[in-house]
């Protein structure tokens, strides 16, 4: 049965792909379709247009009114673009249906392969396939990927390893560029190669193009292998930060490739330019990031456009940096990093989800398109295959990467507490993939003669790194037993101790008397807390401690798991607390594995939970595109669940933490438990007197999100009111219904506000 099913699905996938290929080829073969993104091929379709729109144009006899007309030119450009994107995504879909292939071959390889096929088909029909236009790439395809990476960049490992990353990015790339450039020049001097016309500067230019590790390729490959955080952030951070170096070197050598000579003064200017480009890029990003954070402070009344602010400010940061030839990538990263903590504190939960999913979606589409176009452009050419040049380029790339990493690690390890082992070095060196950025930069070259040769070499290197290195890195990681990403168990104790350690180490540094890493981090945090947060975060959320939000996040997860594991069998009737407690006794308190429940029950639970959206602060722990669907419950919270969880928690507490396990004590214990939320809420009184008053009298609170301010919460709570009142039909303890009704006794007019806000 399974065999038949898999055979069928494979055949189906193959058939669908083939159909699409043919379709696309046919469309592309039609006269106007060969636009892609290269140039606007607006055929002078005057006469057909005139015919349909100006029937009285000429002195011809009167035509009958066309009931059905074919006017393709009108929509040709968007049509083809959409078709390409659709094809790319269907390909992506297809790969995951074919299970075996996707385990061995990384997606990027498959996509390039598809691109090759498509390009071949189009070329076979004698049409010009669309090429990876540089403008398209740099302005439309690259920013989403970089923004996605920057927005979800894990800050802690990044800043902890910042020195190492910078050394790899700057010094490593410089070394690569000069080594490859210089050695290639030596190679070009070999008579047999017949490339004696390539001068030193062109070689250096070539070296600078090919030396940079590409973030798109690294992301695509590393995401699937799940290595430990340190290595991931090292390679990935390097690929992001070397953009400044690449930009400077590229422009420098391109300028002077025309001149022919480089003076010392020019070299000095180049160095200065590097600092300007990198620091300037970061500053532009920071400015836009602060602007974005500030704007998000006022968006409480128009939640729907919140995500747009994030996207637009970031994109503007990128474009503004590009205007001045600063490093757009660094600007984008800086903007995302700066903006994120403040924006997340301000925006509603739905907006947060929207931002997350849109970023993942766009970056996914971009990446797919980039790889397919890479394949297509390869077929297109023009190529100038020169054996010696290409082979030597390949060898030199690998050699310089290895030498660079080993040499730099030797120096870096003297300054690191956690040294990089040989295995780490190998992975870092092996992970130096080249990608589409190199190709686009090569495409930008103006000198056609060398350009073809360079492009061929670049494409070869890209193919080699993506195919060979991309495919083999996973088995190598297994073979070398490199540490994989730790399954992060969200543990409140670990979080407490993380913070405890931070303060402890800062204190010890102070006692020792030297201003180290922890000291400055502590100062920065204090500055952030006292000044920046007050400006950029709306309301009282500015003083929310991290421990609280972490705790609430954890409780949420807890509660969800409890609902699923403990009371799944009884949930649809919204079981009484008693039955829940019975269920608790069966299931261990913190069971991480979620036992299987029947599908229908699961659907029901999910529907109920999802119907009661609440604002949460779920920090995305990983920035992998593939992890998105691992948290179906992330934004589902329900009052019922909280109630159950609280009942269960306080019951446990009364048992474990007080000496007698007396049931009579539970009400007081419950009070103790509930007061925190209540108390915390009271300092939010400034929000709205009505809400504050309602909560003051309330021993219970709606959510464990004690940090949430009233404003963004109103909407979600109000929405929940209807649902909760329906579903709160059979609570056991008599306190509960009181709490619920009082909880949701929000006055009516707010609802209109909420409606307006949503509209």
């Amino acid at each position, binding site marked *: 049965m399974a065999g038949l099913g898999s055979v069928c699905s494979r055949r189906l996938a193959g058939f669908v792909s083939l159909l699409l290929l043919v379709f696309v080829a046919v469309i592309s073969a039609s006269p106007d379709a060969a636009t892609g993104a290269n140039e606007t091929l607006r055929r002078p379709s005057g006469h057909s247009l005139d015919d349909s729109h100006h029937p009285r144009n000429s002195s011809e006899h009167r035509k009958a009114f066309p009931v059905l007309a074919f006017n393709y030119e009108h929509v040709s450009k968007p049509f083809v673009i959409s078709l390409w994107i659709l094809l790319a995504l269907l390909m992506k879909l297809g790969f995951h249906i074919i299970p075996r292939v996707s385990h061995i071959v990384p997606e990027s390889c498959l996509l390039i392969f598809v691109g090759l096929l498509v390009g071949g088909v189009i070329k076979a029909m004698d049409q010009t396939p669309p090429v990876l236009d540089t403008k398209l790439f740099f302005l439309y395809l690259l920013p989403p990927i970089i923004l996605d990476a920057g927005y979800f960049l894990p800050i802690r490992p990044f800043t902890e390893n910042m020195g190492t990353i910078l050394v790899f990015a700057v010094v490593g790339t410089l070394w690569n560029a000069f080594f490859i450039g210089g050695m290639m020049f030596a190679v070009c001097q070999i008579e047999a190669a017949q490339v004696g016309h390539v001068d030193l500067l062109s070689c250096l230019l070539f070296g600078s193009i090919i030396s940079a590790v590409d973030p798109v390729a690294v992301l695509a490959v590393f995401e699937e292998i799940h290595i430990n955080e340190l290595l991931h952030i090292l390679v990935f951070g390097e690929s992001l930060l070397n953009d400044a170096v690449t930009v400077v070197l590229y422009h420098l050598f391109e300028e002077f490739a025309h001149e022919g000579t480089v003076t010392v003064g020019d070299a000095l200017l180049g160095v200065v330019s590097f600092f300007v480009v990198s620091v300037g890029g970061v500053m532009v990003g920071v400015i836009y990031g602060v602007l974005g954070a500030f704007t998000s402070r006022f968006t409480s009344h128009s939640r729907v456009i919140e995500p747009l602010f994030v996207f637009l400010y970031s994109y503007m940061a990128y474009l503004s940096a590009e205007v001045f030839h600063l490093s757009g990538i660094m600007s984008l990263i800086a903007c995302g990093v700066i903006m994120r903590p403040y924006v997340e504190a301000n925006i509603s939960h739905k907006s947060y989800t929207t931002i997350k999913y849109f970023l993942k979606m766009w970056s996914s589409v971009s990446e797919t398109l980039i790889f397919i176009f890479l394949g297509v452009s390869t077929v297109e050419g023009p190529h100038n295959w020169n054996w010696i040049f290409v082979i030597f380029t390949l060898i030199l790339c690998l050699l310089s990467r290895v030498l660079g990493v080993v040499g730099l690690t030797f120096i870096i390890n003297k300054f690191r507490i956690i040294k990089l082992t040989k295995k780490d070095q190998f992975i870092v060196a092996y992970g130096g993939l080249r990608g589409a950025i190199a190709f686009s930069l090569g495409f930008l070259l103006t000198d056609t003669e060398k350009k073809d040769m360079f492009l061929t070499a670049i494409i070869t290197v890209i193919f080699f790194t993506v195919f060979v290195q991309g495919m083999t890195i996973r088995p190598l990681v297994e073979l070398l037993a490199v540490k994989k990403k730790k399954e992060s168990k969200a543990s409140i104790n670990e979080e*407490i101790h993380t913070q405890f*350690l931070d303060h402890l180490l*800062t204190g010890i540094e102070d006692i020792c008397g030297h201003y180290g890493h922890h000291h400055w981090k502590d100062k920065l945090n204090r500055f952030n807390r006292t000044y920046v947060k007050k400006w950029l975060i709306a309301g009282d959320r500015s003083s929310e401690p991290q421990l609280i939000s972490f705790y609430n996040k954890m409780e949420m997860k807890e509660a969800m798991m409890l609902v699923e594991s403990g009371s799944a069998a009884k949930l649809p009737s919204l079981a009484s607390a008693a039955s829940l407690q019975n269920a608790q006794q069966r299931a261990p308190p913190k069971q991480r594995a979620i036992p299987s429940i029947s599908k229908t029950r699961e659907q029901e639970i999910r529907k109920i939970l999802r119907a009661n959206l609440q604002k949460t602060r779920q920090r995305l722990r990983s920035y992998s595109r593939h992890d998105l669907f691992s948290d179906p419950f992330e934004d589902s919270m329900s009052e019922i669940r909280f109630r159950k969880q609280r009942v269960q928690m306080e019951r446990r507490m009364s048992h474990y933490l007080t000496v007698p396990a007396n049931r009579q004590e539970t009400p007081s214990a419950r009070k103790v438990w509930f007061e925190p939320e209540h108390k915390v809420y009271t300092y939010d009184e400034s929000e709205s007197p009505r809400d504050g008053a309602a909560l003051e009298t309330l021993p219970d609170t709606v959510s464990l999100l004690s940090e949430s301010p009233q404003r963004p919460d109103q909407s979600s709570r109000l929405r929940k009111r209807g649902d909760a009142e329906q579903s709160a039909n059979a609570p056991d303890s008599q306190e509960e219904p009181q709490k619920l009704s009082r909880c949701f006794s929000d006055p009516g007019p707010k609802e209109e506000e909420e409606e307006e806000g949503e509209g």
Partner: protein
Amino acid sequence: MGSLQSSPSHQDYVDLAEKTGFSFEQISILHKRFKQLSHNEDKLRREHFGQITDLHANPIREQIVEAFFDRRNFYQEIEEPVSEISFENFLVVMSNFRPPSDNMSQEKLVKVRKEKLRFLFNMHDTDKDGTITLEEYRHVVEELLSYYEALETETARGIADAAMLEVASITRGHMEPDEFYEGITFEHFLKLLEGFDIESRMNIRFMNMDTTTLCFLTTYRGVKSWPFQLYFW
């Protein structure tokens, strides 16, 4: 305060280096700092720690200072609490923060890890009875949260309670309704922080080169007029 040049003999350092694992340069630098803090006396007292202005902003400063005067960290068996410590004790406490050396075997790494966790445990266990009770843990959380002024103690209590429950569940598994969880013993503590790679996190960089002249300028001037250090930022 110009007696920096009276460094003890090399021989003393050898013993200390043996015991704590610091290098000679590191020991001499720390000794300078010790003398600076203690105003050239031989023993350091609690009030000397009060001179360090940066420490005032630290939410857990009391625990940190206490840790220096905690006999358990000296590996000694004295019963009564100490009120002043010698340089050797200072160094022993500091040695808990040394990063593990590169070529350490697996058993040594485990030992180092245990020692660091032991230090942390001692910091939490203020009444020195070998278990961290709920009250003690609550205190820890409250201190951490006191960093953010706006919170009430009940919030901290709630978090500490949840943390204790987590420990209970990890170490004891499912408990019967009438069982009582006394507190976190050291074994439980070890188990709790299993996934926490403390051997690579609980480290600070001890200088090999003498950069205390830099610090000396700021802190020395600070000895005369402490507000200077605040302006430094």
